[in-house]
């Protein structure tokens, strides 16, 4: 009695059976038809295997049998939340192949629509991320604001989601008379309403608890896996194609590249990725305001559109900063009307590939948060 005894517990005997859980393709928070095969030890995730391909539509093979302009609607359907941004690198690639110089007005219009669409994309990203955390109201507030952007894009192109607005050398339609005022109004509205989301969701204690120090993606892992966009910037890497390799006229605008600083936890956690998106919305507002002020009112928007789009023999890789990251198109032309081969470097696909790496050891609820913070669109993952 009174003697301290050391009790030995054989933990291997306590090891319980692991459960393999099939998440998706029909699941509320896989953001589409993603299927995750998850191995759970109680609530702890020990293994994740993403199964993709449920939305595979043979984009690349289709493109080989289409004329160059006919490919654009297919590209819209890749990342269907930011179609305007998707079209840009493809069109830009063909323009570079054909040596077309697009008019100033078109460049500015492209910047405006792409940045508007970037805001809409980030709004959805933040909204669905909040939804993953169980907050339903931010979703509807953000969708309300997104509606103003969609209204402008609809007036321009006729479509609310799939625009088919970019043309080789120009745009499909000219701007309408009140375009500039409406864009500035929307920017003002977004500047006013975005901070509400800060109060309602992002700075909420529960939300911070759920996202900070969860799904930490170190910068080297992010680079190794080819993560780009807010995923990479959330890990503290200052890499934005609009700044590092300015395409189009992005070198004329004054904006800051937002990177994750680990304010609430570690650099590269879910909260950082989310706040990068939030701040990019405000940066996009800055770019839009500058672009609207500098945009020439005169000029024919279809000036440089060629009669026949036929790229000369050659190949090109053209990339642009999509809201989700770097979207690139590798276009091979054999001088015919159809592209010989198109390969898309899909952002979501690359970003999703890091999921098994960063989600092991977290709880099942965290896995959903990590997946939400990656902001994937299955249309782009599967193509």
């Amino acid at each position: 009695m009174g003697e301290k005894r050391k009790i030995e517990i054989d933990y291997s005997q306590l090891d319980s059976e692991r459960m393999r859980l099939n998440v998706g393709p029909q699941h509320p928070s896989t953001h589409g038809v993603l299927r995750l095969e998850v191995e759970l030890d109680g609530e702890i995730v020990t293994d994740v295997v993403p199964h993709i391909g449920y939305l595979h539509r043979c984009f690349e093979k289709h493109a080989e049998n289409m004329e160059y302009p006919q490919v654009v609607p297919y590209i819209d359907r890749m990342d269907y939340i930011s179609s305007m941004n998707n079209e840009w690198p493809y069109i830009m690639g063909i323009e570079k192949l054909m040596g077309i110089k697009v008019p100033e007005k078109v460049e500015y219009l492209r910047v405006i629509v792409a940045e508007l669409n970037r805001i809409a994309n980030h709004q959805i990203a933040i909204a669905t991320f909040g939804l993953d955390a169980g907050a339903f109201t931010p979703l509807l507030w953000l969708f309300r604001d997104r509606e103003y952007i969609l209204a402008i894009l609809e007036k321009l192109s006729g479509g609310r989601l799939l625009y088919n607005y970019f043309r080789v050398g120009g745009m499909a339609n000219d701007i309408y008379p009140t375009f500039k005022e409406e864009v500035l109004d929307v920017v003002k509205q977004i500047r006013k309403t975005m901070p509400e989301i800060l109060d309602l969701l992002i700075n909420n204690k529960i939300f911070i608890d759920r996202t900070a120090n969860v799904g930490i993606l170190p910068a080297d892992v992010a680079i190794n896996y080819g993560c780009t966009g807010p995923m990479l910037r959330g890990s503290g890497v200052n890499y934005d194609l609009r700044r590092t390799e300015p395409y189009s006229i992005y070198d004329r605008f004054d904006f800051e590249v937002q990177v994750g600083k680990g304010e609430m936890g570690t650099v590269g956690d879910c909260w950082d990725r989310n706040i990068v998106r939030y701040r990019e919305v405000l940066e996009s507002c800055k770019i839009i305001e500058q672009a609207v002020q500098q945009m020439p009112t005169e000029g024919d928007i279809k000036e440089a559109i060629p009669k026949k789009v036929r790229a000369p023999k050659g190949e090109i890789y053209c990339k642009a900063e999509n809201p989700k990251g770097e979207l690139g198109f590798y276009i091979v032309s054999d001088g015919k009307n159809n592209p010989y081969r198109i390969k898309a470097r899909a952002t979501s696909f690359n970003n999703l590939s890091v999921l098994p790496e960063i989600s092991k050891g977290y709880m099942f609820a965290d896995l959903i948060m990590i997946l939400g913070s990656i902001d994937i669109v299955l249309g782009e993952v599967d193509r």
Partner: protein
Amino acid sequence: MEYNFIHSLIDNTILAIILITLLPLGFVVIYALIAILGELKIASFVQERLGPMRTGWKGTMQPVAEVVKLLQKEDITPDAADKPLFNLAPFLMFAGAFAGFAVIPFSPFFIPANIELGLFYLFAIGSLAVIGLVMGGWASNNKYSLLGAMRSVAQIISYEVPAAMAILTVAMMANSLNLNEISANQSGWFWNWYIFGGPGPIWKIFFIPFTIGIALIYLVSSLAETNRTPFDIPEGESEIVAGYHTEYSGMKFAMFFFAEYANMFIVASIISYLFFGGWNSPFGDFLNYWWMQPIWFILKSFFFVFVAIWLRWTLPRLRVDQLMYMSWKVLLPMSFLCFLVLGIYMMLI
């Protein structure tokens, strides 16, 4: 004093017993419809939209339409389910929720069963819900249901501890476990409510922070016990689809739904009885007539149902371990502290 006006009307007959049983049931049905409408309309108000507008005037008949829809739906039982358990679970859960109404005094003149251990009984019968959840989650033979049931057991049992401490504190202050007596103790103006220290000398104001604290502890625990946001982890939609009721459809799902709302009312009424004077008017004798007392009670309870709905549409969801942390490491020590301080206060007066 007669605690049941029906007994005094038609004596102690079988008919009286049936009526006493049916009255709360009718109340629960009507309340559930109102709560569903409230949920829809408050959600739409928070989210800056209109909500249902087509069924009836401004969509007021929407809950009826939803209940009819649920009744019409096909009742699916999965092949691999444990059928007796699967079929019993929703009804057991509702029975647990409804049994709680037995001791709730709607007014001093209508208490279905005026037993001395009312609070204790409520607490015990409330635990029946856990069994319903586990039965449903286990019998569904679905991994999501199992995860949901597992989480809900852990959650509800953990949160019963701080809730019990809160109830115990008030029981100590009121010297009673009978809801009617606790309510009668708080008669007079609203400063006699237990959230403001109960009836006592003026220096009770030093103890008011602790009574408010214990009320908040109970409010948080009651949200967790009824699986409401931010503690709706057992049915955390984004993670485990619908938790323990993933496989349920039609009427059985409606029973789960019904039980959830009934439970919400029970905890809301406990809050209003323990801390907010129950059926007393807040303003002394103002509108404190016998016919006004049930209305005061229902209004107070509806307010706390409203608070639960309001929180649901505002807050994100906690994670399982954070939930446990909050129960055992935050709420429980705080409730012990409040219990201790208020115990000293009770010794002083």
